[in-house]
């Protein structure tokens, strides 16, 4: 591998020390905001505006954020936003898998007329400005009563999750040797059975990774719930901005506690699927 050809192949040369220092510099910059958020979330209201690292930590803020108490400034119901987020994202991922897996299989196994067009149309959703579809959806949702409903949110989060699932899984199905299914066909399996019994179990890691990554993308989305939901279907990403509040006193520690809670699910999932992340994030554009 090329690694021994990079500077610092020997330990403790000036180049290797410089490289390590550069890395440490980046990671201080990279991790500091996350660490600071955790610390801030543990501070008492009296200490929230201090910028010191020594204080007596408390878990009170998490309780306050989740119990909907003491939020006279914001009146944010964070707990219900949390539950809504789980329902919206879970629903979107579920529908994406049910619809996306067959499409991904078809696109990965066969070259059929229009398959490339379909795939690239889906990929283009990744690059289209969200507001382009949101403004008409806002009008349509208001007309047909989907505004501020969880069903409406699940439907619109497809925009985020379905292309992701199809693109990731397509490359998994492409990598799956067709011989395996052919052998099953020779044994008298139907195509459908060969798919369910042979292909599907073999790409299970891919399905898990795609589902988790889709969940993260849906969870992190801000624009859709901001515009297409109000109280019933609003999510943590929208709720957290309300903690910043308007004028008057700011609840720094509560904001940080909310940020920690809202960031935890994606962070945990990301560490779980780290091995598959590259393929997922690049939508299979680069295979790893």
């Amino acid at each position, binding site marked *: *591998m090329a*690694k021994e050809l*990079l500077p*610092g192949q020997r330990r403790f040369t000036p180049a*290797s020390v410089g*490289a390590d220092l*550069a*890395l*440490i510099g*980046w*990671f201080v910059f*990279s991790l500091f*905001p*996350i660490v600071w958020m955790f610390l*801030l979330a543990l501070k008492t209201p009296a200490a929230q505006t201090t*910028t010191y690292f020594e204080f007596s930590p408390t878990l009170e803020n998490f309780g306050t954020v989740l119990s909907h108490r003491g939020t006279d400034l914001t009146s944010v119901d964070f707990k219900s936003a949390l539950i809504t987020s789980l329902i919206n994202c879970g629903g979107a991922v579920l529908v994406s898998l049910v*619809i996306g897996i*067959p*499409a991904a299989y*078809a696109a990965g*196994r*066969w*070259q*059929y*007329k229009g398959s*490339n067009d*379909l795939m*690239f*149309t*889906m990929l*283009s959703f990744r*690059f289209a*400005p*969200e*507001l*382009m579809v949101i403004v*008409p959806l*806002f009008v349509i949702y208001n007309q047909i009563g989907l505004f501020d409903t969880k069903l409406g949110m699940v439907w619109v989060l497809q*925009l985020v999750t379905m292309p992701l699932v*199809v693109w990731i899984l397509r490359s998994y199905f492409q990598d799956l040797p*067709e011989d395996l299914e*052919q052998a099953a*066909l*020779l044994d*008298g399996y139907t*195509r459908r059975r060969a798919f369910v019994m042979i292909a599907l179990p073999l790409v299970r890691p891919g399905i898990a990774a795609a589902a988790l990554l889709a969940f993260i993308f849906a969870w*992190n*989305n*801000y*624009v859709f719930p901001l515009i297409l939901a109000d109280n019933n279907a609003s999510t943590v990403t929208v709720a957290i*901005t309300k903690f910043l509040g308007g004028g008057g006193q*700011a609840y*720094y520690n509560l904001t*940080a506690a909310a*940020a920690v809670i*809202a960031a935890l699910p994606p962070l945990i*999932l*990301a560490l779980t699927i780290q091995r598959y992340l590259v393929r997922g994030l690049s939508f299979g*554009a*680069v295979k790893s």
Partner: protein
Amino acid sequence: MTTQSVRPPAQADPEIPSRADSPAAPEVPRWRRKLRPYLLSVPAVLIVIGILYPFVIGAYYSVLNYAAVNPNPVFIGLRNFVSVLGDVEFWSSVRVTATFAVVATVVETLVGVGIALLLNRSSLIGRIFEKVLILPLMIAPVIAGVIWKLMFNPQFGVLNHVLGLGSTFDWLSSHNAMWSVILVDLWIFTPFVAILVLAGIRSLPKEPFEASAVDGASWFYMFRKLMLPMLWPYILVAVIFRFMDNLKVFDAVYVLTAGGPGIATRTLQIGAFEDSIINLDYSRGSTYMFLLWVIVFITARLLVSVLGKAQRRAAGAES
């Protein structure tokens, strides 16, 4: 968001000749075999249509005078485009968007490639850091925006304290806001470039490097002549994803500055948001978005064709 393909058109005969046609396979009529991939894709196609529909409606809004105060829109041709294109604020948004997208993409790419090269060494520090590299990327941009907004606060924010800037330095003043939002974007998305390029480096073949090391080539020579050309497709994929996303940046910037102060960080998406959602002028917002979409689309086509060339070159077809 069109059905434009960048690959050669699909083959006429969809069925890959295989043992599926052998007599032992269960008897399935040919037409059903041909239809299978289409049937499997039907739900996905319906979803695509369900999303293309609002997209087309949105494009249609841009030739109407549709607004909340004007619920009975009529066709007004290209008047929205004439008015938007003649508007100083629009061109300011174009400038803000272009500056943001170009600067952020270039810096993220350079730093990301640098981090990937540093992480590729087998040092203990590198192995530890590789695990946590992705963390900022997984935090929602909105939440990242909230965190940074707290840190940017001149009075209570931790940044001025740690950096010894005192309470007078304002990160989000009209003079600094652009650089601050770029800094936040850099914080969130540089890991994306880094992990893509790192995966690329790890997939490179060993032999050319060993051969030129035997020839006594310097590290920099090998980097420039061997590694960079082979890595180019990976870097380009990262650039494409980052540039497209930076052109339509919204979440973090909206939380940090809401486009302000004044119009200092008012990107095209924020401009469209103001027009459509805050002022409820749907047509004007859609015109903004349509123009942004055209910009994104043209850029995507250009970059993807460059990527195709780079991939062919890296595959050795041209060298």
